[in-house]
C-alpha cells in the first residue's frame, strides 16, 4: 500500500519511512479510540494502522465500549474542555466514567504493548493499567486551550500519568500541562474516495445531477449543518458577491438523525434560500465522498467560514484539489491557509465576500494560489507525514531518558 503514495510524496520519502521503522523493530503499538466509525480520528486510524503494520511495526486498534450514559458524559466533557459553558460535572458521572473504564480493563488488553496511544478523553482512564516500561501517549484532537477548570481537573488526574501528550497545534494546548507536549498536525489521505482524482466527466455529471450548472462559477462550502460553521454567513457573503458576479453557491453537508440542532440549521437554510435558484443546500448521506469530491473539484472558490473550528481538515481537502480557500481566521484553518499565498484568511462576511470576488475575477490568481495550495498540502498535510511524525514520536518517547 505504501507504494501507492510514491506519486504524491516521492520514492525517497517512503524509503526514509522504512529506514525509520527499522529503529522500531520488535515493538508493539496499540491505538485506543472511542469508535471505529465516523469522525476524523477513525478515518485516520483506518489508514494509519495498516500502514504501520506494513512497516512491520505490529500495531492494533481497539475501541472503548460504553453505553449512552457514558458517551453522554464524555460528550459533555469534550464540550467543557472546548468551551466552559457553566455546566458542572457531578460525582455520579465521575463514578460512572470509572465504572465503564474498569469494565473495559477486561476487554482491552494493553499489557502486551510497548506504546499505547489513547485518542481523546473517552478512553483516558485506561492509563490506570499502565505497566512499568510502557509508554503511554495521550493524543488529543480537541482544542483545550481554555478548558472548564472542573473538566480539566478531572482530566489531569489521568494526564499526569502519561509519558507525553500530542496536540494538533500549540494554540490548542492548555498552559498548565506539565508532561512533554508535542504538536502533530492531522492529515488527509490522498487515496480516500473524497480525495482521489476524478474525471472531468464524473465531476460534470455529479454537478448536473444536482441541478448545478458546471459552466457557471461555483462557490462551495462543505460542512455539517451547524451554526458554528456559519452557513448563514456564507449565504450573506454570496448575496454581496452575486451583485456583480453571476455565480452559484453550494452548501453541502449532512446532519445526524439524532442531531435536532443540525436539522434545524438545515431547515432554516432551506427556508431562507427557497427563492434562490442559484443556491443549493444539499443534505447528503455521510458516505457521499465522491459527490463531495466532485463539488470541491468543480468549485471555482471554496469557502470555510467557520466561527469556531477544530482543525478543519476540509480546508486541506479542498487545497489538495488545487482550490484557493477563503477561510475564517480561526482554529486550524489559520494553520492551513497561508494568507495571500494559498488562499485568504478573513474575519467577517464582508471580508469573505471581497476575497471571493477577487478570486472569481481573476483566473490567473486562482490558478496560482491553487497550485501553491496543493503544494502546501503535499508537503505538510498528507498522511505520510503524519505517519512519519508518529514513528518519530514513538522513537523519541522510547528513548526519552537515554
Amino acid at each position, binding site marked *: 500500500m505504501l507504494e501507492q503514495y510514491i506519486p504524491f510524496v*516521492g*520514492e*525517497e*520519502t517512503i*524509503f*526514509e519511512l522504512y*529506514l*525509520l521503522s527499522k*529503529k522500531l523493530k520488535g515493538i508493539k503499538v496499540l491505538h485506543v479510540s472511542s469508535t471505529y466509525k465516523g469522525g476524523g480520528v477513525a478515518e485516520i486510524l483506518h489508514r494509519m494502522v495498516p500502514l504501520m503494520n506494513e512497516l512491520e511495526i505490529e500495531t492494533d486498534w481497539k475501541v472503548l465500549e460504553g453505553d449512552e450514559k457514558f458517551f453522554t458524559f464524555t460528550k459533555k466533557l469534550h464540550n467543557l474542555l472546548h468551551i466552559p459553558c457553566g455546566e458542572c460535572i457531578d460525582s455520579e458521572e465521575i463514578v460512572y466514567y470509572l465504572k465503564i473504564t474498569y469494565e473495559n480493563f477486561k476487554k482491552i488488553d494493553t499489557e502486551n504493548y510497548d506504546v499505547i496511544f489513547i485518542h481523546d478523553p473517552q478512553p483516558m482512564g485506561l492509563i490506570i493499567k499502565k505497566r512499568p516500561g510502557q509508554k503511554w501517549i495521550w493524543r488529543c484532537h480537541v482544542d483545550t486551550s481554555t478548558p472548564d477548570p472542573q473538566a480539566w481537573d478531572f482530566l489531569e488526574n489521568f494526564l499526569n500519568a502519561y509519558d507525553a501528550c500530542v*496536540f494538533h497545534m*500549540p*494554540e490548542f*494546548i492548555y*498552559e498548565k*500541562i*506539565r508532561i*512533554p*507536549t*508535542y*504538536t*502533530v498536525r492531522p492529515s488527509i489521505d490522498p487515496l480516500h474516495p473524497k480525495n482521489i482524482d476524478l474525471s472531468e466527466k464524473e465531476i460534470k455529471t455529479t454537478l448536473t445531477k444536482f441541478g448545478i450548472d458546471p459552466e457557471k462559477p461555483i462557490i462551495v462550502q462543505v460542512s455539517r449543518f451547524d451554526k458554528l460553521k456559519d452557513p448563514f454567513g456564507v449565504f450573506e457573503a454570496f448575496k454581496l458577491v452575486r451583485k456583480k458576479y453571476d455565480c452559484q453557491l453550494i452548501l453541502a453537508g449532512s446532519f445526524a438523525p439524532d442531531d435536532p440542532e443540525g436539522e434545524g440549521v438545515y431547515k432554516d437554510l432551506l427556508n431562507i434560500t427557497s427563492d434562490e435558484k442559484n443556491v443549493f443546500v444539499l443534505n447528503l448521506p455521510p458516505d457521499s465522498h465522491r459527490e463531495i469530491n466532485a463539488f470541491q473539484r468543480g468549485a471555482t472558490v471554496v469557502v470555510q467560514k467557520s466561527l469556531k473550528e477544530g482543525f478543519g481538515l476540509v480546508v486541506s481537502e479542498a487545497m489538495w484539489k488545487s482550490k484557493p480557500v477563503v477561510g475564517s481566521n480561526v482554529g486550524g484553518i489559520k494553520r492551513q491557509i*497561508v494568507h*495571500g*499565498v*494559498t488562499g485568504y484568511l478573513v474575519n467577517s462576511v464582508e471580508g469573505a465576500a471581497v476575497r471571493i470576488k477577487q478570486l472569481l475575477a481573476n483566473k490567473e490568481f486562482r490558478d496560482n494560489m491553487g497550485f*501553491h495550495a496543493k*503544494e*502546501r498540502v503535499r*508537503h*505538510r498535510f498528507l498522511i505520510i507525514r503524519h505517519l*512519519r*511524525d508518529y514513528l*518519530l*514520536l514513538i*522513537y*523519541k518517547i522510547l528513548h526519552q531518558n537515554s
Partner: protein
Amino acid sequence: MSRPFIFKSELWIPRYTGIMVYSVREFIETLKIIDKFSIFYHMYINIFNYHNLPTFYTNSISFWFYKNGYLLLAEKISIIDPLDYYDLDDLRNALVQTLEKNYDKDLDKKEKLTPFYFIKAEREIIDCERIANTLDQFIEGIKKSSINSLFYHLITSRIENKTLVNDYSSWLLSIGEAKKAEKINKLDLYIMNLYEVKKEIIKILENETC
C-alpha cells in the same frame, strides 16, 4: 584516497516548550534564554516548512512581528540569514541585538499581541544506507535524496560540525572538485526552496565545465 560520502537524513518532531509570549519585550527576554533548538526550529525549519511557497517573510519570528504590526522588526529579522551562522548562540545574539537596537518601546501596543509559541525541534538523524566514493555515485545519491536529506547536509550539518561549509561542498573539496564545491556553498538556501536547490545542485554537479 578520500573518505566516502555517507548520505544521511534528518527528521524532527515539534515539541512545545511550554512558553508563549504576548509582547515584544517578553519575546526578547525569552529569546535570550530559550533552548537553542527552539531558535533552530523557528529560524531553520521554516526553510523546510515554508520556503516552497512565496511567503512574505523568511522565518516564523519575522512573520509574528509582521502579523502583529511591527513591520520594521519583521524586515530587520527577515534579512538575518541563519546560514551565516554555525553556532546557534551566535545566531541568538544576532537576533537579540537586532531587536534591542530596533525596538522602540514607546511604540509598544497596549493590548496583548497574538501569542508567539516557542517550539523546539526534537531531531533524529538517520543513515540512508548509501555512500559515494566517486562523483558519479555522489550525483546518483543526490538524485535519490529527499529534501530532508538535503536539509541535513546543507543546513544542520554545518551546525553540528561548526563550519560554514556544507557537507556536500566539504566532500567535493576532498575529491578535488573545488569549483563545484564553491558553487554549491554559494547557493542562497534562505531564499530558494529545497526542491529548487536540489535541481540546482544536480545541474552544478553534472556541468562538466565547472
